[in-house]
């Protein structure tokens, strides 16, 4: 583009042999001359076709764009958060209090937000991972073809249901349905801290337990879809190798499909976890807010980073209060980054399958 000589060459000569001849001629004439400053330049003019250039430009451009965009988001969060962090009267990372109603006396700490976010997400992941694995294996290995397609379609359709609908469903349908079960868990297993009676009314269902299950349903389609793709790619020859050794269906899955798809399944789950960490509206609708501290029970209420920020929208007209929430958003941003980095290292550790 900035080099019209190179750009014109392929257009001028359709015969690649001619082009090569043109390129070779100066090299030949220079060959007997001992190394001159020009000599190292001859090999660096490889023939590049315009299509390659344009595509490379576009690809590099997109790559640079996304990196710059992420950098800009991070920078925005940091710049907005710093002034408020300076005004914070208590420790931002280790305090559980959150009071930003008086901008002159900001008291905010993220510990409870972090814990609730992580617990809701992990609960969702623990529920969704085995179910997604089961569905993906069923669809790729067991289901007859004519059943697998519509079934996969239904699962994908789950991903198209808006968050808000999941939230309403969780609050009005799932919450009441879970109530007897939650009661039973609290009565029988209450001595284990995570099943202890929580800090909100279980009967209303606005607990981490309900939210975790709803988020599990929400991340199920993405984990299933990605795992299904990966399992489907298991090389035919390895599957046949196992079958020919006298492997049953399940043994084929165990010896070839699972080892092959493991890394993909793990990264699919991490993708799901990323979504769970950031899920906002559904969690906001379901979780009962409370001023009591998080007590490590699934039947506690509270708020996640995202739901807390969304609920606080009315306070954003004061930049100092808004900065407190942006600081919380920054932590969420970092958290999702860390999760992704872990996922990547897990995947890299399983590269031996080729």
């Amino acid at each position: 583009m900035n080099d019209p000589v190179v750009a014109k060459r392929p257009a001028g000569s359709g015969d690649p042999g001619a082009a090569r001849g043109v390129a070779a001629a100066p090299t030949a004439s220079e060959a007997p001359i001992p190394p001159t400053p020009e000599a190292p330049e001859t090999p660096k003019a490889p023939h590049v076709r315009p299509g390659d250039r344009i595509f490379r430009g576009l690809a590099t451009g997109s790559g640079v764009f996304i990196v710059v965009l992420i950098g800009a988001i991070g920078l925005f969060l940091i710049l907005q958060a710093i002034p408020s962090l300076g005004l914070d009267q208590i420790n931002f990372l280790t305090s559980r209090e959150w009071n930003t109603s008086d901008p002159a006396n900001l008291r905010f700490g993220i510990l409870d937000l972090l814990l609730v976010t992580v617990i809701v997400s992990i609960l969702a992941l623990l529920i969704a991972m085995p179910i997604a694995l089961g569905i993906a294996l069923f669809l790729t290995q067991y289901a007859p073809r004519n059943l697998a397609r519509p079934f996969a379609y239904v699962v994908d359709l789950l991903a198209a249901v808006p968050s808000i609908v999941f939230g309403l469903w969780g609050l009005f349908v799932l919450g009441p349905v879970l109530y007897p079960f939650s009661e039973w868990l609290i009565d029988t297993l209450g001595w284990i801290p995570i099943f202890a009676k929580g800090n909100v009314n279980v009967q209303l269902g606005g607990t981490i337990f309900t939210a975790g299950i709803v988020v599990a349903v929400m991340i199920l389609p993405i984990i299933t879809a990605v795992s299904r793709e990966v399992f489907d790619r298991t090389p035919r020859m390895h599957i046949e190798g196992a079958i020919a050794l006298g492997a049953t269906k399940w043994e084929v899955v165990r010896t070839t499909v699972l080892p092959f798809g493991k890394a993909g399944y793990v990264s699919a789950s991490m993708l799901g976890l990323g979504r769970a960490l950031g899920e906002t509206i559904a969690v906001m609708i379901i979780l009962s807010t409370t001023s009591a501290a998080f007590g490590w029970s699934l039947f506690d209420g509270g708020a996640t980073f995202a739901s807390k920020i969304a609920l606080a929208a009315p306070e954003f007209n004061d930049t100092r209060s808004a900065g407190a929430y942006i600081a919380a958003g920054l932590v969420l941003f970092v958290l999702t980054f860390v999760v992704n980095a872990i996922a990547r290292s897990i995947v890299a550790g399983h590269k031996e399958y080729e």
Partner: protein
Amino acid sequence: MAKRLDIKDLNLFYGKFHAVENVSLAVPPKNVTAFIGPSGCGKSTVLRSLNRMHEVAPGARVEGKVLLDGEDIYASTVDPVEVRRTIGMVFQRPNPFPTMSIRDNVVAGLRLAGVKDKKKLDEVAERSLRGANLWNEVKDRLDKPGGGLSGGQQQRLCIARAIAVQPDVLLMDEPCSALDPISTLAIEDLITELKKEYTIVIVTHNMQQAARVSDQTAFFNLLGVGQPGQLIEVDDTEKIFSNPGQKATEDYISGRFG
């Protein structure tokens, strides 16, 4: 060990497509039978029907009988998984399990059959690797992944894996077609060696190979596109290559085909 196979009026289908027609053929024990013929005539299809791998393809169907020492492997009471444990198979492209170590690859079949005794497994691994002429090359790295071997070594690993379960019959579908001449020779020697203990059926596109390793040769042909493949003739390898009974066979082996 080393049983005989009798194929009776075998017809093979992929859905509506009639791939192979009326094959009848006897495979004697401790003997190498070669399948030759042009591409697409159904050699692999027939071979795969001998250990019930054919039915793994969607819509695939089998008519006729395959008798293993007189017992029909397609009888309704027979479990295909059992058939595959007694009739081993080696594929065109080496396919060791990439996440498994060399040793685990060799004993994979035994593990599937429920053998857990570590000592027994190690013994079998060594015996099978020796049997496949691979022991000396890999004895120091039995715990390394099988995928790290060369193509020829991988193919011998697959042969070791197949003979580890001491099958009654060993089926090989173009086992050398992805290999260099040296590895090919190693495998041909191995086949001659294995013949003392196993009944072997091998598909090959290489006439010299068929002539070198096999005792009897079956020639398959295709009358036209979309027509089912047929068994043209089967006879002693020497006879097929010196004085075949059919014109088509002669044309094919002398390269005057088509």
